[in-house]
């Protein structure tokens, strides 16, 4: 092809080329790894390099097994771990929503200067490494950490409270770390909302709380959905926070995954754990997207 032919091709197809970029990205960085994990999850573990059986044996026969998945179903440990991860992530999401909504609302309604400052404060923690911030919480919640010392100094308590190495500490870590991901999408929808709509509802006889549930909440729904997904999805597989802040009995799926891979070197089982986790995530996402599609359909 000559240079001008290339140019012509680009000029004609630039829209398709641009759309192709995210598809290519997904193909290379999501679909291909997923295929590899899927392949490993139906293999048998072997002591070799790599530590799982190849897809085809020497005679070229396909070898695949459901053993890893049936094992996940039979050993109660995994069901309990999945359930615990889902409930913890869901509770943390609800907590983030309860704390984040008023904050986002306040920021969206603040005057322009204050609003930028508040947004900056929300984003500021990202300048510091996530790991460091979680360590900082250890320093705060220690038996002889800042919080306990302060409360003892105040005279509220005379013995240090056990804050660390409990679910409480995991919740603190999760809510603290993921709150910005709830606030930012909520802020974006609330900021766009026409304030006259709330006034109009009140003008027509709605008290402020009724106006909130009739107008503000339904119009903030896309932001709520986006924020919840952004918190729930990373929270469910979270490894660092439960590992550092939670107790040894805090068996969450991220921990199990890590142990299977690196401690037991059972790659096929670990892959099966990951696949099931993915399914657990995909189902709520699909449901939420349906509801969102319904919302936009209603709105248009």
């Amino acid at each position: 092809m000559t240079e001008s032919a290339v140019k012509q091709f680009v000029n004609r197809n630039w829209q398709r080329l641009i759309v192709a970029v995210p598809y290519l990205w997904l193909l290379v960085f999501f679909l291909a790894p997923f295929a590899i994990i899927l392949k490993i999850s139906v293999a048998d573990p072997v002591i070799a390099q790599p530590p799982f059986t190849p897809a085809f044996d020497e005679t070229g026969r396909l070898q695949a097994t459901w053993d890893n998945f049936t094992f996940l179903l039979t050993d109660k440990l995994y069901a309990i771990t999945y359930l615990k991860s889902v409930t913890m992530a869901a509770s943390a999401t609800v907590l983030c929503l309860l704390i984040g909504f008023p904050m986002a609302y306040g920021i969206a309604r603040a005057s322009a200067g204050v609003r930028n400052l508040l947004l900056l404060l929300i984003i500021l923690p990202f300048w510091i490494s996530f790991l460091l911030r979680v360590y900082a919480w250890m320093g705060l919640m220690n038996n002889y950490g800042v919080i306990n010392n302060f409360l003892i100094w105040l005279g509220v308590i005379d013995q240090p409270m056990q804050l660390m190495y409990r679910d409480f500490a995991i919740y603190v870590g999760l809510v603290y770390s993921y709150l910005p991901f709830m606030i930012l999408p909520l802020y974006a929808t609330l900021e766009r909302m026409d304030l006259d709509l709330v006034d109009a509802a009140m003008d027509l006889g709605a008290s402020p709380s009724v106006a909130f549930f009739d107008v503000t909440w339904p119009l903030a729904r896309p932001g709520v959905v986006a924020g919840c997904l952004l918190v729930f999805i990373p929270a469910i597989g979270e490894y660092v926070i439960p590992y550092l802040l939670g107790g040894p009995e805090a068996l969450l799926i991220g921990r199990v995954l890590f142990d299977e891979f690196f401690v037991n070197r059972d790659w096929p089982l670990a892959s099966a754990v990951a696949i099931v986790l993915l399914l657990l995530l995909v189902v709520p996402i699909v449901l939420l997207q349906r509801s969102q599609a319904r919302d936009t359909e209603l709105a248009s």
Partner: protein
Amino acid sequence: MNGQAASNGDSASPDFIRIENLSKHFDDFVAVDSVSLSIARGELFSILGGSGCGKTTLLRMLAGFEVPTTGRIFIDGIDVTDLPPYERPVNMMFQSYAIFPHMTVESNIGYGLRKDRLPKSEIGSRVDQMLELVKLNDFRHRKPDQLSGGQRQRVALARALIKRPKVLLLDEPLAALDRKLREHTQFELMAIQDRLKITFIVVTHDQEEAMTLSTRIAVMEQGRFEQVGTPKQVYEYPCNRFVADFIGTINTFESRVVGCTDGVIEVESAEAGSHLHALTDKPIASGDSVSIALRPEKIFISQERPDAAEDTCLHGIVEDLGYFGNLSLYRIRLSTGKIVQVSAQNRRRSAERFLEWNDEVWISWQRQSAVVLTE
């Protein structure tokens, strides 16, 4: 609750709505400055003023969205100043329309009645009535973003009317409409107002709209009322230069008073290049500076010098002219250099123009047509 209009009892008491010394300050900025006003039941009252003069702020105080810095508001004898919006017998049509984007036309219109917990059957029939009134029957199941600007405006109107409030506040109700539709809707609004006997307060910055619609007009500037009166009073007897300029076009001659007898003043105007006469009941003394103001349509234009002795006559040449179908506009340059605008009806139909550029003409007016402005 109190969204219902009271049984139309007493006749037009001028104090149906009473506003006393109402002010609104935003920090240091005075948006509404000590406004007092009385409006009778059933009036269609317009507030006219330029952008940013405080019209919306005044309306929002009446609706209850802004807390007045000072002053009180009475509606039908009740002090509503401290009532929240949802307890006032007032509904508002917003400048932005503020139609709920997630509800259909029908449920937008019925919203107010649902909040009053009226029985379903009554809500249904009243929504039907409203849809009929604003001619949106075929669009009842549509979402707001499937409507045209004019249709949306009618949804907003219906939604504000359905509770039959004692007072309906309309913030630039027709601003988004094209000229034809606007004129049509103006008459519809007047018809609706007449039928439902609701007191309307309409905010607008379109003076023609105010003139056509209203029983009375308040001209607002920088948070204050410059003049309140019937359209005719405001147009024919503007109380100051701002009002005269704001409503329609007007020619003014800066002058100095040289004599005053029996309500007739004689002034000397360098701009006109001669002595002018005008009638006034204002207390004016010799030596005062005044402006003599004349509407373009009050001035006659002719090629021969008119002979009525009482009238003022000035000589000039046609500097510019414009043909507007039903009338023509002329800009006449006087020998002093002053430009005077004159409008004349095009009564004759002819391909020939009556006047051409640079024609010498006489302009004249009756002394009772001139308005004396003291500020």
